Structure formats: structure tokens, C-alpha cells
């Protein structure tokens, strides 16, 4: 769910909660408070998500929040509405504060009734409101959680299952394939620019390599060490690196991930337009140990936000490259600046590229001549004006100098 929409929905609910609180204060302190107002707002988000917030003046205690969102999978679940697991997850947000209205409002998949009289008065009120406003994310993530929870419950006689296409973000579907003892999540990667493809591809290869490095080190540790030649420093150091990575136990718990430029065999039979990519396919093997207890939430979050994570990384990398290039430009230009000094050995500090020009340029003959003439005329003046009269210099500068008819900078623009 985008942050902007999350903020708008929570803002709406906050206003209604404040209004309700002020009404309650009116009852206790007998002060005039804001009058309850009619609220009937429709909020839209890209990806065909729609919210409807409704509150009537006659019944200000209750507010109705309806949500319409495309579900992760458009298959069987849609015909039955939301699954019992999803409704259970929604109820768990706050059992006192919200209640699911059945049937949902026409055109919406879920309608919630919010009772502001039961909202906590302390800091937790904001937390509850924030969780309610992110109910769309709860609906989508609960569907994937339900699939992952049942990873071990499939009968092995069923063999391979048809891939299930899930859409968390428009135009970025991914696939979940159920197998015995594990679930494979496959992400077809697409990018608009060629440079993004290259950056992402090197990232995927590194990600797959990180896992493979730990697996190789665990399996081949002993045999590799035996084949190391004593005294051969290169082999010894490489073996030492493998030992260091393999000795950490944490990488053993990571789901195996791999990248391939072609669709994996599990996706055979899927529509061609879904399998045509320029960034290859990233696969994660999720087993039961990745969904135990609190890991289920983290795994679901990681899978649903994988696309956003990769795109953010690509964008940050491009920004990093741009910053490096700017910094390097300054140092490359500085090479020319530091390569030469002025004729008399002094260095003037002037900013910009003109600085470079001034430092590396040789003084031309005309400039040398002018400078010598200036020195000569200065000497003449000193000789001629040896007799010093106080104040005469100022008088001379003000009254005895010839006026300049042309600008020293350049020509004067005629209008």
C-alpha cells in the first residue's frame, strides 16, 4: 500500500476519532464541541484500489470503511469473497474497535464498522488507526500467508501443481508453485532501461552466489581443505575464505535462491506475454522452517516487496554512480589545475573552469608587454612625484584624470 494513500486513510480516521473524542468530552465537561458532520469520501489509489469512508451525523459513534481491492489471485478465492483466514486476520487488528459487516457494501469486498467509543485514549489510538488504515495490505498478505502455511499439507501423490499467478503490484505478477515439502516463488523481472537490466542482473547473480557460496562451503569443506597444497598461498587463502563463510550457521537457514535468464521448467505452459522478460527469473524455495512462528510475517513481507526492493536498489545504484562521476570529474579537472603554476610562482584561487584556463595558460607576448609598460610607467610616476603634497593625490584622482568613454568590461548594449 503506498504511503500516500495510507496517510490519507489514516488521516480521515484520525479526524473522525478526534471529533468523536471531542463529543465525549462535551458530555463530561459540558463544553461546546464540534458538531458531528456527515462524512462520505471516496479515495482512490492506482491499481484499482478504492476506499469509502462514511459517517453520519445522526450516529457519530460509528464509521463505516469499505475497501475494494484486486486480490492477489483472481482464481477460486474471488468467487467465495474473502477467505475465513483473511477475515480472521482482519479481525485480529482490533477486536474491540472494528467489526466486519456482512454482507459488504455493494461494489466492495469488505466493509468495516469502526466504533470510536472503544478506541483507546492513549498513544495506542494512533497505532490502532494506523493498522486499520493498512487493512488492504493485511488482506493481500493474508492470502499469501494462507498459501505458505499449508506448505506441508499437500499430498505427495498430487505431484506438481499448476503455478498460481499473484499480483501485488499492477503489471508485476509473480508465481507461486506448490511442490512437496516446499513452495517455489518465481519472479519474472522486467526493466524499462538496458542499464537497469545490467545492474539488476549483476545483483541477482550476486544474490544467488551468496547462497551458493555458503552451500558449497558446507558440503565441500573437508574435501577442499585436503586438496590444498601446503605452501601454496593462493589456494590456502581461497580455502580460508570459504571456511569463514561456511562456518556461519545463519546462511543455512536462508531459502535457496537462484537466477536464470530463461523461464524455469515449472512455468511451462504459462502465457507467453507473462514469460517475456528482459531481467530473467528469480526463484526462492520456501520450506516449512521459513514460515515458523514470526518468520511467516517476514517471509510474506519479503516476497510481496521483492520487486520494490530490487527497483529501489537499482535506483540507488544509479544515483551512486552519478555521484561518483561528479566527484571524479572534479578530480580529473584538478589534474590540469595542479599541473602548472603561474610565471611568478603565485597561485590565485579562482573558482570554475576559468581557473583551469588561467593556470595552464602561458602569458602571451602582448600581456607581458603590457605588464612591463605598466611597471615602467609606475616607476616614472614615482620619480616625477617624489615631492609629496598631502591631499594632492586625492585631488589629482578626482579632478585631473581623463573620463573613460568606454566600458572596461565590454560594449554597452544599445536599447
Amino acid at each position: 500500500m503506498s504511503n500516500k494513500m495510507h496517510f490519507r486513510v489514516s488521516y480521515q480516521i484520525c479526524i473522525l476519532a478526534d471529533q468523536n473524542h471531542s463529543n465525549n468530552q462535551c458530555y463530561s465537561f459540558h463544553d461546546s464541541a464540534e458538531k458531528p458532520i456527515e462524512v462520505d469520501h471516496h479515495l482512490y489509489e492506482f491499481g484499482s484500489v478504492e476506499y469509502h469512508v462514511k459517517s453520519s451525523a445522526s450516529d457519530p459513534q460509528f464509521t463505516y470503511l469499505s475497501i475494494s481491492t484486486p486480490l492477489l489471485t483472481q482464481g477460486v478465492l474471488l468467487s467465495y469473497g474473502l477467505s475465513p483466514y483473511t477475515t480472521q486476520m482482519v479481525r485480529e487488528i482490533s477486536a474491540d474497535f472494528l467489526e466486519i459487516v456482512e454482507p459488504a457494501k455493494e461494489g466492495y469486498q469488505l466493509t468495516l464498522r469502526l466504533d470510536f467509543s472503544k478506541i483507546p485514549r492513549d498513544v495506542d489510538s494512533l497505532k490502532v488507526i494506523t493498522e486499520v488504515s493498512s487493512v488492504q495490505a493485511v488482506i493481500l498478505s493474508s492470502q499469501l500467508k494462507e498459501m505458505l502455511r499449508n506448505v506441508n499439507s499437500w499430498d505427495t501423490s498430487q505431484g506438481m501443481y499448476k503455478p498460481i499467478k499473484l499480483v501485488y503490484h499492477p503489471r508485476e505478477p509473480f508465481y507461486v508453485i506448490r511442490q512437496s515439502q516446499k513452495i517455489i516463488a518465481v519472479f519474472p523481472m522486467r526493466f524499462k532501461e538496458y542499464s537497469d537490466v545490467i545492474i539488476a542482473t549483476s545483483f541477482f547473480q550476486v544474490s544467488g552466489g551468496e547462497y551458493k557460496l555458503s552451500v558449497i562451503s558446507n558440503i565441500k569443506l573437508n574435501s577442499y581443505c585436503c586438496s590444498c597444497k601446503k605452501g601454496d598461498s593462493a589456494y590456502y587463502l581461497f580455502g580460508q575464505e570459504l571456511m569463514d563463510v561456511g562456518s556461519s550457521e545463519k546462511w543455512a537457514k536462508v531459502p535457496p535462491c537462484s537466477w536464470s535468464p530463461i523461464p524455469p521448467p515449472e512455468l511451462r505452459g504459462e502465457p507467453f506475454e507473462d514469460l517475456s522478460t528482459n531481467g530473467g527469473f528469480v526463484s526462492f524455495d520456501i520450506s516449512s522452517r521459513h514460515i515458523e512462528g514470526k518468520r511467516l510475517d517476514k517471509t510474506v513481507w519479503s516476497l510481496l516487496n521483492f520487486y520494490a526492493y530490487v527497483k529501489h536498489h537499482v535506483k540507488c545504484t544509479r544515483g551512486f554512480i552519478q555521484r561518483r562521476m561528479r566527484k571524479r570529474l572534479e578530480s580529473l579537472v584538478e589534474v590540469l589545475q595542479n599541473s602548472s603554476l603561474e610565471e611568478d610562482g603565485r597561485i590565485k584561487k579562482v573558482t570554475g573552469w576559468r581557473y583551469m584556463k588561467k593556470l595552464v595558460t602561458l602569458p602571451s607576448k602582448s600581456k607581458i608587454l603590457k605588464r612591463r609598460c605598466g611597471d615602467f610607467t609606475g616607476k616614472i610616476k614615482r620619480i616625477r612625484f617624489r615631492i609629496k603634497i598631502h591631499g594632492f593625490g586625492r585631488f589629482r584622482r578626482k579632478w585631473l584624470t581623463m573620463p573613460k568613454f568606454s566600458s572596461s568590461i565590454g560594449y554597452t548594449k544599445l536599447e
Partner: protein
Amino acid sequence: MANTLRLYLTCIRNTLEAAMCLQQNFPCQEVERHNKPEVELKTSPELLLNPVLICRNEAEKCLIETSINSLRISLKVKQADELENILTKKFLRFLSMRAEAFQVLRRKPVQGYDISFLITNYHCEEMQKQKLIDFIVQFMEDIDKEISELKMSVNTRGRLVATEFLKQFI
């Protein structure tokens, strides 16, 4: 590896020292009162010298074209893989777009090369010849170094990001 680079750069330096003998203010033979870099126009063959191509290997080469009043140096930088390819293109294009900061840099490289310099007689009048040659040789070294460092940095960042992502599952 370093030896071949040294030999390559030394060869380029010696060639530039011989090639950078540009005549001051040679007027254009085609158009009156115009003064154009003949190496770009190539209208009068008698004003052009034989171009010199110095190759370190198939991927790295340097083309030095000389004329009576101008000199053009075109460089092809080594690109081992796709990542180095895009980094080189981005970086050299970035520099070319800011050619005024370098004065002797050409805004568009010669076809078949990654970056080009154009040195005219005016540059030789304003700048010291030896310093110019030092700058170009140093530029070549710095570009190679920078591309390698960029590639390493990108891979290191990718590794760190991948590590952080995989930690979510632990």
C-alpha cells in the same frame, strides 16, 4: 599486465610528442578568413599526416590523427563485460557532455571509439605542450582505474543489499 600498460602509454606519449607540432594560425584553404581544424574537415589531403593506430589488444586502442593545425586523439577503453560496458558508456558520456571543463575534449567521440580529444594550435599557444601530453596520458590511466573501482563498488553494494535482504528470512 602492468608492463604492457606502461609500454602502451609510453608509445602513446612518444607519438604525441612527435605529432603535437602544430602551425600557428593556418588559414583555411577553402573559405576566406576562416581558420578551421583541418583534421576535422579533411578537405585538403596535403595538410593531413598519416594517422597512427596504437593497439594494446583487440579491445584497447588509440588513434592519433594529425594535421597542420590540429590533432585528434581517439581512445577505445577496454570493457570486459556488460557491466563495464554500461559504466564506461555512462562515464565517458558524462565527461563528454561537460567538455568545456576540459577544453580539449570533443563532445562526441569518433565513430568506433569511446572518447576523443581535439587539440588545436590555439590550445598549444595557451597551454604547455608537455603538460597537455601528461594530462592525456594521466586521463587514460585514471579512466581505467575509475571504471574498475566503479564496477567493484557496484558489486560490493549489490552483495551488501543481497545480504540484508536474505537476513529477513533468518
